[in-house]
């Protein structure tokens, strides 16, 4: 009782001062505010934006935890050799403290920088513009470390977060107004500024950049992703099972399709994530994958072509590697930057999947396309919605014409 009353008194005290927004932001984390309805519906649903955002964060936890262990697993596996017993899911070869420590020591600082810097910017904007601190960044802050290479310097991340939040979101008017997905804006910023840290074969496993030597005195760690291997037309070292469960190099949270599917199921079940976007994205990716597979089987693309390995890669395995699963489930479904109409979501999702695979295969510099595909479709989402809504408008016009004739 005491805490509640004290905080209430403080809230009254700070009303109208510079502290108001910051204090309220913290206060509403402890207590659901005492705001009541005044007009319209006198009762309201128990869910608010905080609860919704919280649900999305919870859906990201499996991928985050797996990512921490996998960072260590890839690191030690490349130095000491991977366990011979095969797939280590449910074994201590994977779930051990050493692995976790490598991951945690890298990923927790990223998480702290991401949230610290991002929320800092949000608080400043809220105070200056005198609006409430909005929840949008809670999810963005969690997404950001999950789509980064493990060794990314923290200062780069901080710069990118400032850019993403200010240019990507606040300039448009804050949560709910942005055109592009903020987390992907941050990633795109990093990618175009420090490409050497964001792509290539030296960044995806902890230690690859520093050139940790093995006993033989050669580079122990190759930080190449599966897509990188394919783009270079080299033989694959991982089974489809490894890809599905995620024992492969890649951005922190993107590797385990299995954990991502857990998150997807949770999002769809809670009614927060859009199943339409997810399913139609998968369909789009499968269609493009099948087209490429057919090009190979029909002999249009033959061995020796620089696209051969990526095109020959079975269409369903395309869904297991790279960031496509993560992007489809957690980024494409961002309701603000996605299409907002039912039909629009289907079209929007389809092209995300379609373009992801297309860019992945044809872009030689950067063998992953989901980031570009989502950003591209973010830009087109309002256009798609426009035509879907126009169909509704035309239906209404037609009704009017039938009446007047």
């Amino acid at each position, binding site marked *: 009782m005491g805490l509640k009353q004290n905080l209430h008194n403080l809230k009254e005290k700070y009303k109208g001062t510079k502290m108001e927004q910051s204090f309220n932001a913290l206060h509403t984390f*402890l207590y659901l505010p*005492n705001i*009541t309805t005044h007009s319209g519906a006198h*009762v309201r649903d128990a869910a608010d934006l905080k609860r919704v955002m919280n649900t999305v964060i919870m859906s990201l936890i499996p991928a985050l935890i797996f990512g921490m262990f996998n960072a260590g697993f890839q690191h030690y596996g490349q130095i000491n050799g991977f366990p011979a017993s095969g797939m280590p899911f449910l074994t201590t070869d994977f779930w051990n403290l050493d692995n976790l420590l490598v991951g945690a020591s890298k990923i927790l600082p990223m998480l702290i920088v991401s949230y610290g810097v991002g929320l800092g910017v949000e608080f400043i904007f809220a105070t200056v513009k005198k609006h409430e601190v909005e929840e949008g960044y809670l999810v963005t802050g969690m997404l950001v470390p999950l789509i980064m290479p493990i060794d990314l310097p923290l200062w780069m991340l901080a710069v990118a977060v400032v850019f993403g939040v200010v240019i990507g979101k606040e300039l448009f008017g804050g949560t709910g107004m942005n055109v592009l997905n903020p987390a992907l804006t941050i990633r795109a910023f990093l990618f175009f500024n420090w490409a050497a840290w964001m792509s290539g074969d030296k960044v995806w496993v902890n230690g690859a950049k520093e050139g940790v030597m093995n006993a033989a005195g050669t580079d122990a760690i190759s930080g190449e992703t599966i897509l990188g291997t394919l783009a270079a037309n080299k033989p694959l070292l991982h089974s489809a099972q490894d890809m599905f469960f995620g024992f492969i190099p890649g951005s922190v949270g993107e590797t385990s399709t299995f954990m991502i599917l857990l998150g997807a199921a949770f999002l769809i079940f809670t009614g927060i994530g859009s199943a339409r976007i997810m399913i139609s994205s998968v369909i789009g990716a499968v269609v493009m994958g099948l087209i490429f597979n057919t090009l190979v089987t029909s002999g249009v693309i033959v061995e020796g072509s620089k696209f051969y390995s990526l095109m020959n890669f079975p269409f369903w395995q395309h869904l297991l590697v790279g960031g496509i699963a993560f992007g489809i489930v957690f980024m494409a479904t961002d309701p603000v930057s996605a299409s907002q109409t039912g039909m629009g979501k289907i079209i929007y999702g389809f092209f995300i999947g379609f373009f992801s695979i297309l860019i992945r295969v044809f872009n030689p510099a950067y063998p992953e396309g989901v980031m570009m595909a989502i950003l591209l479709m973010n830009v087109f989402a309002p256009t798609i919605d426009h035509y879907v809504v126009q169909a509704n408008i035309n239906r209404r016009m037609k009704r009017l014409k039938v009446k007047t004739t």
Partner: protein
Amino acid sequence: MSKDIRIKKGLDLKLKGSAECKISDASRSKVYAVKPSDFHGVTPKMIVKEGAIVKAGEVIFYSKNDESVKFVSPVSGTIQEIKRGEKRVILEILITADSQNVCLEHSKKNPKDLSSQEVKAHLLASGCWPFIMQRPYDIVANSADTPKAIFVSGINSAPLAADLNYTMNGKQDALAAGFTALTKLTTGKVHVTVSPLADFMPNVDGVSVHKGEGVHPVGLVSTQIAKIDPINKGDKVWTVQIEDVAIIGELFITGKLNLQRIVALTGTGVESPSYVTVTMGAQLSDVLGSNLKGGNYRIISGNVLTGDKKSKEQSLGFYHSQVTVIPEGDDYDFFGWNLPRPNKFSVYRAGMFSFLTPSKKYDLNTNTNGEHRGFVLTGKYEKVFPLDIYPMELLKSILVKDIDQMEALGIYEVAPEDFSLTEYVCVSKQDHQAIIRAGLDMMIKEVG
């Protein structure tokens, strides 16, 4: 031609405190009030002064923009006060009731024998006209118009709403006369939608009776209009509440305007939820009487989704047949934004488990359960919105005052009440009904 309407997109809020089928008379108030603000868009022009003595049914003011539309006193007595607010806007007219309750007598008429002009003149003169509402815009109908059709909803699907089978029981004759009068007002049809279980609807020539089933908002007249004969640009249709059709009918049969309603007292703030017979304009303290629990409650004239917040001293709304009393929610809730809350209801499954108990009844309070935010989630409003309209797009077009887009997206087809459910499920806690009302007012001003 009768239509079957089946509504799946919507939501039945299950609340505690539904009215038991027993009825009593509310104690007679000392003071009755007529509030011009109950009639949206009407600017009142008084024709009586403070201190004047009026009969029940006598005209006290008329509408400035449509002078034949008159408003009457519900009781006989003395005009005690004409309360004015800023810029001398009339807030309410208080009438001290006398003990006799003398009614103004009109001649008894059979609407069948009257021409449409005669019916119209009688309704206008007797003060029944404000019962007739116009779409588009959801305002009192313009007496110069002839509508394309008249729609009456015979379903009360709102939370805890009065059971029409109970309140309309024994009013068949009045309904028959009222509907006959309505048929004279339109060149088209009079459409009534009732539930398949309804037993109060008489057979009247020129009235088509439709069957409506499903979840709320099946009982909202916009839903029924959209399914039966949608409104196009340039159309005018009228709507009347079925309780008011009976009042109109009674006027023709008895020659007296009997402004009484059977009101359902509902909600957990009511000691024993039941029905009372109330004269319109009665103070809510008299309507509720000893039935009101002590404590921090909100009194709502109407239902929880569309009603008006009132104090005990204020009067029952002109169009309302329900009073709901629910707990105020002006308290903080520790980690109320993320912990499961078994005493609250959510259509989302985000840490809320109300989906496991679909038939559980809730005692919801007036807390917004969150702060006002920009529109974020999409595709949720459509699940509780049965009209062929994009609700969020329409709301946004109103917020940016884009008249052409509002028209194209179907603003003529909606009333604020249609957005009560989207407002309920909105996680951004936007006030949808207020936005729609503002949009309609903008259209009245710009388009007319």
